[in-house]
């Protein structure tokens, strides 16, 4: 039985490149940048934060050394052992990472003799925060070098690595890998930490919605993940359809720049043209790049040719690259390329039959189908069809938010998917990888 993995009991860790590669074409700034992004891969999805320091007291000391360098893992010249790092429990060198200076370190070089520094650093920093080797060929933690892993700015950890590190540290509140953790906190004072989730303890905050018995203000697919908004909160499902946290995240703490008095949104969608995210509330809308609102917003919805009063729902239909807006029993069709409303709108009967005449929101999911939400139910229109699929509406809470019987158990304890596969799951049980992500948000 492998000993329980040691982990850091602090969340803020410092790092420093103490010695650089001597004969490498990689400049010092490139080496430091690659180390920054290799650490960011792990801090993007966990509550860990890494910051570079100059002094010698860094938690994670990074060295480029040759042959025997005074630890239990002497290097062996080009090839063979290329790097190692020390787990958090190591007495002398916890977190330190050593790279063999006899290797030809490169960055996304096509030359197979080169060693991609970013790829190796992501692996070694996995050790530095407590992960050990695994046999899974697709894991970044398998021991053999597999070549470059692509662009550091867009690199995403394989799912099993994310689950394993979540089991060590829990999930990071800010949900998108593009989150800029160093953006300034909103002006309101930092919220007190969540009370421990024990029932006998302090009661949950009054305004926190219960995911198993609520309807939703807005639903959107953003960067492949599903977001369910209610009041000042939202739940998120990963692209594999896994609910990241049973507790909702606070909208204002992640979507930076929404006015603090905003108590909810009407509709949200991701623009297909530039992948920016558009939020609607009343007569106004905001455009976000990643999770930061752009300058000059909010603006009036008349920019889209919409009348005062705002919208109930909005979504981009990939089938024709149009954006549909819904309000009461009317709908509009907006052309993202010409940036104008198509003539003949608003109109009464949208292209899809069998969906309700009024909507809370709509979105397209990774299975290509369009999903329409109203109240606590949803309708599915399979890609290429124009009619709601038979057997709908179904319960949103049960199929998307891991509730058993939404009425019986408002707390919505973590239940198994129903007889039907949940849309995000496509027929796989939640534990198909033998992993469960039980995240603690407090």
């Amino acid at each position, binding site marked *: 039985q*492998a000993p329980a993995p040691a982990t850091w009991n602090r969340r803020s860790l410092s790092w420093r490149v103490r010695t650089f590669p001597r004969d490498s074409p990689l400049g010092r700034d490139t080496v430091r940048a690659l180390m920054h992004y290799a650490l960011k891969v792990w801090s993007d999805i966990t509550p860990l934060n890494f910051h570079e320091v100059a002094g010698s007291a860094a938690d994670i000391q990074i060295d480029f050394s040759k042959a025997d360098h005074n630890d239990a893992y002497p290097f062996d010249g080009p090839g*063979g052992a290329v790097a*190692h790092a020390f787990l958090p429990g190591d007495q002398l060198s916890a977190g330190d990472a050593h790279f063999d200076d006899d290797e030809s370190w490169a960055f996304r070089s096509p030359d197979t003799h080169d*060693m991609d520094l970013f790829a190796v650093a992501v692996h070694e920093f996995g050790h530095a925060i407590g992960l050990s080797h695994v046999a899974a060929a697709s894991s970044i933690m398998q021991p053999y070098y597999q070549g470059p892993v692509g662009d550091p700015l867009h690199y995403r950890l394989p799912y099993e690595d994310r689950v394993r590190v979540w089991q060590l540290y829990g999930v990071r509140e800010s949900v998108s890998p593009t989150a800029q953790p160093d953006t300034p906190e909103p002006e309101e004072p930092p919220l007190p930490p969540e009370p421990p989730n024990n029932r006998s303890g302090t009661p949950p905050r009054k305004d926190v919605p219960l995911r198993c018995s609520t309807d939703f203000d807005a639903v959107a697919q953003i960067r492949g993940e599903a977001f369910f908004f209610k009041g000042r909160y939202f739940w998120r499902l990963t692209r594999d359809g896994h609910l990241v946290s049973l507790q909702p995240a606070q909208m204002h703490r992640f979507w930076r720049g929404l006015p603090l008095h905003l108590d909810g949104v009407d509709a949200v969608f991701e623009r297909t043209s530039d992948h920016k995210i558009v939020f609607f509330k009343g007569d106004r809308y905001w455009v976000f790049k990643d999770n930061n609102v752009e300058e000059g917003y909010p603006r009036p919805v008349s920019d889209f040719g919409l009348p005062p009063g705002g919208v109930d729902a909005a979504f981009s239909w990939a089938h024709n690259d149009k954006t549909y807006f819904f309000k009461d029993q009317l709908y509009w069709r907006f052309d993202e390329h010409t940036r104008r409303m198509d003539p003949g709108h608003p109109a009464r009967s949208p292209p899809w039959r069998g969906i309700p005449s009024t909507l809370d929101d709509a979105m397209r999911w990774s299975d290509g189908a369009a999903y329409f939400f109203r109240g606590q139910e949803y309708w599915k229109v399979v890609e290429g069809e124009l009619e709601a699929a038979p057997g709908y509406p179904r319960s949103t809470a049960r199929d998307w938010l891991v509730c058993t019987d939404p009425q019986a158990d408002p707390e919505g304890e973590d239940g198994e998917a129903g007889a039907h596969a949940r849309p995000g799951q496509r027929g796989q049980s939640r534990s198909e990888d033998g992993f469960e992500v039980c995240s603690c948000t407090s």
Partner: protein
Amino acid sequence: APAPRAEDLSLGVEWLSRFGYLPPADPTTGQLQTQEELSKAIAAMQRFGGLETTGILDEATLALMKTPRCSLPDLPAAAPARRRR
């Protein structure tokens, strides 16, 4: 498969000890590995590396042993191959 050459065998034993598949050789007794222990250790390494589990130092296994890798062991030092099951 042809019997591995002596140097491959010694490379293999050194490699297996280094990455946690064999207990480190005892410097005083120069503890030799039994053939059965060696075969189990090779099989464990082949399983971890996604190779066919033959228990012998075949070509694919020797090639994987020459692949650049992380220095850390694959198994916790205290867990010799037989306990891996």
